[in-house]
C-alpha cells in the first residue's frame, strides 16, 4: 500500500472510489428493480391522472395539455428522486456500512459522490421511460433535438442538485422512514406551488411570484420552454443559477456532515 500520495494520485483515487461506489449502487438498483419500477409507476399515475381526470378542466391556450404536462412530470420525477438519495444514505448508515467505509483509506467524498452519480443514472433511465409513456399518449417534442438535449441536461443537473439536498437530509435524519416523511415536507410545496401541472396565470399574484422564482418552478418553466420551443426568457439562467448555487451550498455541507457521522 503506497502511503505517500501525490495530489494527482489523490485526484485519481477520489474519482476511482466514487466510481466503485457508483457501480455498487447501480448493482443494487438493478438487483432490486422494485424500486426502479415504483419510482416509474408513480409519475405514470400522475400523467394519467392529470391528462384524463384534471386535464380537461385545465386550459393551456395554444398547447395540447399533454405537451404542457410532460415537462412538469419530468421535473417531478427528478425532484422525488432526491428522496431516494437520502433514503439510500440513511439505509447505509443504519446497516453500519458507512462505518465500514469510514474505516477504509478511501476518499471522504466517495460515498456521497457514488450515491448521487448512481441516482443521476437512475433519473436518466426513468426520464427515458417516461418519455416513452408520454409518447404513447400523444406527447411530442415541439422543438428540435438540440433543445431536447438541453432540456435533458437541465433536468439531470437539477436532479443532481436535489440529490445533494437529499443526501444532507439523509445524513441528518439517519433513518429511512424519517427521510421519506421529511421528503414530502420540502418537496411537495415546491412541486405544487409551481407551474408543473397548471398554467401560472390562474394563480394569485403572490403565488405566481413564488412559483416563478423557486427552483422547481423555474426549472419546470425552462424545461417546458425548451420542449415546446417557446421563448425561455429569464428561466434558463434562473434554473442554472439555482442548480449551481444549491450545489455550492449542499455539496460542502453534506461532505462536512459525512465526516462527522
Amino acid at each position, binding site marked *: 500500500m503506497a*502511503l505517500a500520495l501525490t495530489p494527482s494520485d489523490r485526484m485519481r483515487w477520489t474519482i476511482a472510489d466514487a466510481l466503485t461506489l457508483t457501480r455498487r449502487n447501480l448493482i443494487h438498483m438493478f*438487483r432490486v428493480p422494485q424500486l426502479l419500477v415504483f419510482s416509474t409507476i408513480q409519475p405514470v399515475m400522475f400523467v394519467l391522472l392529470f391528462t384524463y381526470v384534471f386535464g380537461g378542466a385545465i386550459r393551456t391556450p395554444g398547447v395540447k395539455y399533454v405537451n404542457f404536462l410532460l415537462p412538469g412530470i419530468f421535473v417531478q420525477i427528478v425532484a422525488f428522486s432526491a428522496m431516494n438519495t437520502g433514503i439510500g444514505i440513511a439505509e447505509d448508515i443504519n446497516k453500519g456500512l458507512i*462505518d465500514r467505509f469510514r*474505516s477504509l483509506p478511501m476518499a471522504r467524498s*466517495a460515498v456521497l459522490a457514488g450515491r448521487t452519480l448512481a441516482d443521476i443514472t437512475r433519473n436518466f433511465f426513468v426520464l427515458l421511460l417516461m418519455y416513452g409513456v408520454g409518447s404513447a399518449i400523444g406527447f411530442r417534442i415541439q422543438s428540435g433535438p438540440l433543445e431536447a438535449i438541453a432540456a435533458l441536461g437541465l433536468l439531470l443537473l437539477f436532479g443532481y442538485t436535489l440529490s445533494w439536498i437529499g443526501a444532507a437530509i439523509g445524513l441528518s435524519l439517519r433513518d429511512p422512514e424519517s427521510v421519506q416523511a421529511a421528503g414530502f415536507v420540502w418537496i411537495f410545496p415546491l412541486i405544487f406551488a409551481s407551474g408543473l401541472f397548471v398554467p401560472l396565470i390562474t394563480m394569485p399574484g403572490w403565488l405566481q411570484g413564488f412559483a416563478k422564482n423557486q427552483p422547481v418552478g423555474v426549472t419546470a418553466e425552462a424545461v417546458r420552454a425548451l420542449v415546446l420551443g417557446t421563448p425561455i426568457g429569464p428561466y434558463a439562467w434562473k434554473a442554472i443559477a439555482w442548480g449551481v448555487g444549491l450545489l455550492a451550498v449542499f455539496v460542502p455541507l453534506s461532505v462536512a456532515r459525512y465526516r462527522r457521522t
Partner: protein
Amino acid sequence: MARRKRNDAIVAEGLEKSFGRVRALDGIDLNVPEGTVVGLLGPNGAGKTTAVRILTTLLQPDAGRAFVLGHDVTAEPDKVRASIGLTGQFTAVDDNLTGAEFLWMVGRLYHMSNAQARSRAEELLTRFDLDEAAGRTVKTYSGGMQRRLDLAASLVNRPKVLFLDEPTTGLDPTSRNALWEVIEQLIREGTTLLLTTQYLHEADRLADRISVVDHGKVIAEGTSDQLKRKIGGEYIDIEVKRKMDVQLALKAMAPITVGDPSLGATSLSLPVSNGSGVVAEAVRRLDKAGVKLVDLNVRRPTLDDVFMTLTGHAAEEDA
C-alpha cells in the same frame, strides 16, 4: 500499568470521550505489543466500543492520544486506515451485493487493481468457507455466514492490526466456535489483535492479556490466570427448596467458601477453592446440615463474578 511503549502496535494514553453528559471514556490506557492479543472485557456501556471507534479513526477523542503502528489516529487517519482491519459491533455487509461483489468492492476501496481485488475476494471466500455462497446475495446468508463475510472484509488488506468489536455476540454456539477457529488461525499468523467481548470465556480463549473495563476505565489488567487468581477458582451454584435453606447452606459451606457469596431467594452462588472432590464435599456438607437441595452446579467464574469481585456490582447494572 506495566509498560508504556510508543512502538507497540496499539497505544492509547488517557483517552477521554463524552457524549453529552455521558462519560463514555474516562482516561483509558492500553498497550498492545505487536503480534499479541489483548481482550477488552466489560459489560455493555463500559466504553469498549467507543475505545475501538477512536482507535480505528471513526471518532475523535476529547482528550488523550492514540497510536496504531506508530501513526497518530487523529493526525494521520489515512495511514492508520490503510494498515488496520475493523469488524464492528454490528455486522456491516451489503445485503444486495453477492459475497464476491462485496469483497471486490472493499478491495477496490483499498485501491487494489480490479484483478487483485477479484483474486483476493476469491481467496477470502475460500478461506471463510463461503465459496459456495460467493454468487448469492448477502441477504440470503445466515447470521454466522454474514459475520464471517464481515470478518473477511476486514482482512482484505492483509492488515497487521485487527480490531474485533464483540465478534461473536448474537451468534449461535456452532457459528461462534467456527469464528473462534478462524480468529485463532489469524492469531497464529501473527496478527496483532484488539478484541472486545462481554464473555470471559471468549477473552480467556483468545487473548494473551485482558483489560477489564468499567465506566470508561481499565479497572484490572493481566493475563487470564492472573485475573482468575484474583477472582478465585470455581463457583458452586446451589438451588434449594425452602428460603430457610439458604442460610443453612451458607453456614454449612462456609469452611470451603473462599470469597463473597451472592444470595438469591432460594439460591446461592459461592466461590470455592479449586480441587477435586469439591462437589462431593459440598453435597456431604449440605446433606449433613439438612438442606433440601434442588440443584447443584460447579462452574468457572463468569464476567459477573469478575465484576462482583473487582467492582462490587454486577455487570448487568450497566447494561
